[in-house]
């Protein structure tokens, strides 16, 4: 009987266990490629955001002062809803076809893989929201400084929404009542993001400057960047159990 041949020796390249950068890049590239091959789905989510934001002035008296006061809040809530709408697909497809299992069994660090997926989610659902915000904000008679504050806030806040949402998406994998349950779990956690993001515009309008708000959002983003992938990876392993 032949002894273990070199053909079966483990890869002689650098040990793969716990690798972070290749895992992140692999997950991000793969998810982006898949997302772009189902482009129609992406368009629908952006459209949802636009419609929700447009509906508000139609259902309330479009008096300029009121609109300007409501504007930031509406845009933030719509961003939140748009994020929630696309969160289920973060893990669900991979869970259903067995690739999530393979990711959990990979020698790579699962939090790193999850981070890559979250980054792809943000690029496909958060970034369009940020880009469209200035345009949509004009419907609410927001001036230039308000629009720029709003957009910067969304730029800092939408990744946090993706990160927190990923935890919820992983916890609710494969469960009935998925979407609504996901919203119930995630929305309370996102309240601070909403408060500081929309509050930044109010602060600027009151002449106070939004520095504190942005610092807090940035701090929140850092905490979420470290903590959320770990929690989401733990939740994925629990769901695969």
């Amino acid at each position, binding site marked *: 009987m032949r002894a273990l041949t070199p053909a079966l020796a483990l890869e002689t390249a650098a040990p793969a266990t716990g690798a972070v950068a290749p895992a992140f890049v692999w997950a991000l590239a793969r998810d982006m490629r898949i997302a772009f091959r189902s482009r129609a789905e992406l368009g629908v989510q952006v459209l949802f955001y636009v419609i929700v934001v447009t509906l508000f002035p139609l259902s309330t008296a479009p008096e300029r002062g009121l609109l300007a006061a409501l504007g930031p809040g509406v845009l933030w809530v719509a961003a939140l809803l748009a994020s929630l709408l696309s969160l289920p697909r973060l893990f669900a497809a991979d869970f259903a076809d067995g690739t999530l299992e393979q990711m959990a069994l990979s020698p790579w660090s699962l939090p790193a893989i999850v981070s890559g997926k979250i980054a792809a989610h943000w690029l496909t659902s958060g970034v369009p929201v940020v880009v469209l915000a200035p345009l949509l904000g004009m419907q609410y008679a927001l001036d230039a400084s308000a629009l720029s504050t709003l957009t910067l806030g969304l730029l800092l806040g939408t990744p946090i929404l993706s990160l927190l949402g990923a*935890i919820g998406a992983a*916890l*609710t994998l494969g*469960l*009935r*009542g998925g979407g609504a*349950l996901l919203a*119930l*779990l995630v*929305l*309370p*956690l996102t*309240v*601070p993001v909403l*408060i*500081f993001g929309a*509050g930044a515009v*109010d*602060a600027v309008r009151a002449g106070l400057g939004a520095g504190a708000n942005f610092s*807090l959002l940035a701090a*929140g983003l850092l905490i979420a960047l470290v*903590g959320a992938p770990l*929690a989401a990876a*733990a*939740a994925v392993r*629990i*769901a695969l*159990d």
Partner: protein
Amino acid sequence: MALNLFRYASPASFYPAAQRMARWFAVAAAVFAVAGLWVGLIKAPTDATQGDSYRIIFIHVPAAWMSMFIYLVMALWSALALGYNTRLSSMMAQALAPTGALMTFVALVTGAFWGRPTWGTYWAWDARMTSELILLFLYFGVIALRNAIDDPRRADRACAVLTIVGAVNIPIIYFSVKWWNTLHQGATISMTAAPKMASIMLTGLVLMSLAAWAYSIAAALARVTSVIIERERGALWLSQLPEMRRSVAA
């Protein structure tokens, strides 16, 4: 002490202890409640500014404290469950959630009834009340997640992760709501500015807090006994219990 605790880590040995303790704490809760309500409703003087309506704080404040304390304890049991993989830790976390939600609900409702005569409105977006409301949603989330998952092991671990994530977020949420509140309300309304405490009022509060604490423990222990029965069905020790034998024979 640690050795002693681990002996109770199995549902079988914890069950009789839980039953006994639940009864004792229920009695204690009743005693404290009677004493506290007597002090609060009868002995404590009428407040100079708020009249008699302030007396609702004897229920509101203990309930609010317990709502937060219970969540913290739930998070601790959840951490134990994830760290040591003990079923009973998860069962305790499971048993605590509905009581915590109840305390939060009571705190919100009594807060609303306190607000009405005092400031003319049932709900003002004050920092503490808003945070309590979000805490209620967090409790509902944990309960809903547990109900949505069939497999008990997955439910235990998923709820544990959710509880811990929520616990980390609660200070952040409170801080953010407080920030928002000071910007929008100024220093005018503060629902938790309890009237200057005569010492008799403080006594009443302490008694009611002890009552709430004892009640919560009694309720959680009583609930954990039914959780144990439900989850350990089929275990030999369960079928040997006198009450099981009685109901089977009947």
